[in-house]
């Protein structure tokens, strides 16, 4: 099977994630879409590692997983604090800062 198909798949996943970030209203869902984008990156890395014939991409995927986990922790804590304050995790609800 042509490995390039996996790159296409990763770009679709990335686009779905990006669209989700822009369209969804719940901060948790937005955040999950960001995670989908990071995982799309991982798929691309691993696929390119196979195509290039070296292991760099697979090692990078490890690092991305760890960074993504750290990001989950920080992000979730921020969203939980916001939710406790406002009783809602809607991105539209957070609209005090403008102009």
């Amino acid at each position, binding site marked *: 099977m042509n490995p390039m198909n996996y790159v296409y798949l990763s770009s679709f996943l990335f686009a779905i994630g990006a669209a989700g970030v822009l369209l969804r209203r719940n901060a948790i869902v937005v955040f999950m879409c960001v995670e989908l984008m990071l995982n799309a990156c991982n798929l691309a890395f691993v696929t390119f590692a196979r195509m290039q014939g070296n292991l760099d991409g697979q090692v990078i995927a490890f690092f991305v*997983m760890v960074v993504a986990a750290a990001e*989950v922790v920080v992000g979730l*804590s921020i969203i939980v604090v916001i939710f406790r304050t406002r009783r809602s995790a809607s991105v539209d609800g957070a609209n005090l800062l403008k102009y």
Partner: protein
Amino acid sequence: MTAYVPIIVLGAIALGFAMFSIVAGALTGPRRYNRAKLDAYECGIEPTPQPVGGGRFPVKYYLTAMLFIIFDIEIVFLYPWAVYFDSLRIFGLVEMVLFIATLLVVYAYVWRRGGLDWD
């Protein structure tokens, strides 16, 4: 095929240990059932009637989940290190000890600040 012998042996030992534990527990332990013991184990949520929409989780669950994620995922670095342990030698060992020590600092912080207390 000989390369797989250790794996098969390991699997057999694991299977044997699991079966021994279950059988030994069933044979030797006292049996006093109550409601709580028949509930789903380690799922965290009471299986009793829930409010519409599933209800809300106490923040504690998020805290525990976050701690679990951050400590769990660091294991990922141990695999490549273990695979290449022979060629990394003392350098790899020192770096990995430093890495785990840093995690230990975080663990100490969480523990001292009450992140591990449920109440």
